[in-house]
């Protein structure tokens, strides 16, 4: 196969995943949240149980007027949604779906790359918060900055633990090195990574920067139309990316009960959707954390836990 064809197929595959998985997760969120609250959720769009609701939403967003406030910092304001969306697209590029060549771009420093790229999200939030020329946006942006910088630390420490255990930074390498008993050994790191990841994508119960009951809609207050839809899409892609990272790092990625060679992609997808379900489940079950509780959880619980896990991992690696 010529190089250009292979590249095209890989990039197209990642883009397709980027466009379909978030929609699936979004639709699942609509339905799961509704049923958890004793409702039915969307029932009309598309005919069968509202399967086309998000497509209809997308069409609606495209038709809406794209308003930029006159006091806003125009180029920064207009660029922010794209900056929010791009890191997740790049992150999907290196996450392996199955064994062998089933990955967008097998990077040797994949884990490092993913964490660096996901960290760019905070820039988008700050850009939108500052550029909107709106006090609510600014408050949301600053809260987001404090939250994301704080939770970046446990996220990286937990990921470092698993990288140390596997002895590699390559995501396919980590999955190959993974063994079922790691579920127990790396359990604290998994919890820390998952919680910090949910906080990184600002999902409830960590949605202090958005906090629609007190900050209107935080840093997204001034956005309309397609740019607002970009922010929403970024949120859903964020769920997919965090779920996929948790799967790859801690749940053994493509390793399943049987047929890893051929069914690896299926195991990965099942795990990703299961973790996404847990993220939605947490959203429905828990109220929003206060700002001080948020920081307390990060600095007094997650960071010490992650450091302890690092020590444990190092000890086990030295002994074995």
């Amino acid at each position, binding site marked *: 196969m010529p190089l250009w064809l292979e590249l095209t197929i890989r990039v197209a595959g990642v883009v397709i995943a980027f466009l379909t998985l978030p929609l699936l997760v979004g639709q699942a969120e609509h339905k799961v949240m509704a049923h958890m609250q004793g*409702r*039915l959720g969307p029932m009309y769009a598309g005919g069968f149980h509202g399967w086309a609701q998000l497509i209809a939403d997308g069409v609606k967003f495209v038709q809406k007027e794209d308003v930029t406030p006159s006091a806003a910092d125009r180029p920064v304001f207009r660029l922010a949604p794209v900056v929010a969306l791009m890191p997740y697209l790049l992150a999907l590029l290196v996450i392996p779906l199955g064994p062998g060549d089933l990955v967008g771009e097998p990077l040797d420093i994949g884990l490092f790359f993913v964490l660096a790229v996901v960290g760019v999200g905070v820039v988008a939030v700050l850009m939108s918060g500052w550029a909107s020329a709106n006090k609510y946006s600014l408050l949301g942006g600053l809260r987001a900055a404090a939250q994301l910088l704080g939770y970046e630390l446990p996220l990286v420490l937990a990921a470092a633990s698993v990288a140390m255990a596997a002895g590699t930074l390559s995501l396919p390498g980590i999955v190959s090195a993974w063994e079922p008993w790691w579920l127990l050994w790396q359990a604290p790191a998994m919890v820390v990574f998952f919680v910090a990841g949910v906080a990184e994508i600002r999902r409830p119960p960590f949605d202090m920067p958005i906090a629609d009951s007190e900050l209107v809609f935080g840093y997204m207050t001034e956005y309309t139309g397609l740019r607002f839809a970009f922010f929403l899409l970024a949120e859903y892609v964020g769920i997919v990316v965090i779920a996929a990272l948790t799967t790859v790092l801690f749940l053994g990625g493509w390793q399943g009960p049987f047929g890893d060679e051929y069914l690896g992609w299926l195991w990965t997808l099942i795990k990703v959707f299961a973790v996404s379900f847990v993220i939605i489940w947490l959203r429905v079950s*828990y109220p929003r954390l206060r700002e001080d509780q948020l920081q307390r959880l990060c600095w007094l619980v997650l960071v010490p836990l992650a450091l302890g896990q690092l020590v444990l991992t190092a000890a086990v690696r030295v002994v074995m």
Partner: protein
Amino acid sequence: MGVPGEGLAKGLAVTLKTMTRRSHTQQYPDVEPDLPPRSRGVIALLEENCTVCMLCARECPDWCIYIDSHKEEVVVPGAARARQRNVLDRFDIDFSLCMYCGICIEACPFDALYWTPEFEYAEYDIRDLLHDKERLGEWMATVPPPPVHDPNGEPSKEESAAAKKGRT
């Protein structure tokens, strides 16, 4: 003191349990709602029973019943003089004022007013909520049969009165 994190687990259990149960949503425009018995939807008028006694209009707390009438002479052959009879010209209920208390129905001594469970009579213009006697008469077709007597309840007035008469 319980186990730490017990509350968190309980919260998750509640939402998961709710998800497995049937939801309470009624698919209203697609599926007719099952209304409880004696639902108060709209008031129907049985014109033949009305004697224009005006009790309903007087008892109505927000004065939403408008009644006009005139008297008619009825000549009965063989009687000493002609009898007079009330004829209903207008009987309107303004449902934009009505608060569905049902006092008019309770007050009517001749059973000319009935509740019916029909509720789909919303209008774009508030003035169209004034139902005239033809419109009120049309609702008569939708009056449900009276509910059966509660076997454990008190016997009706008619029954107990008849029983008393039988004893003496």
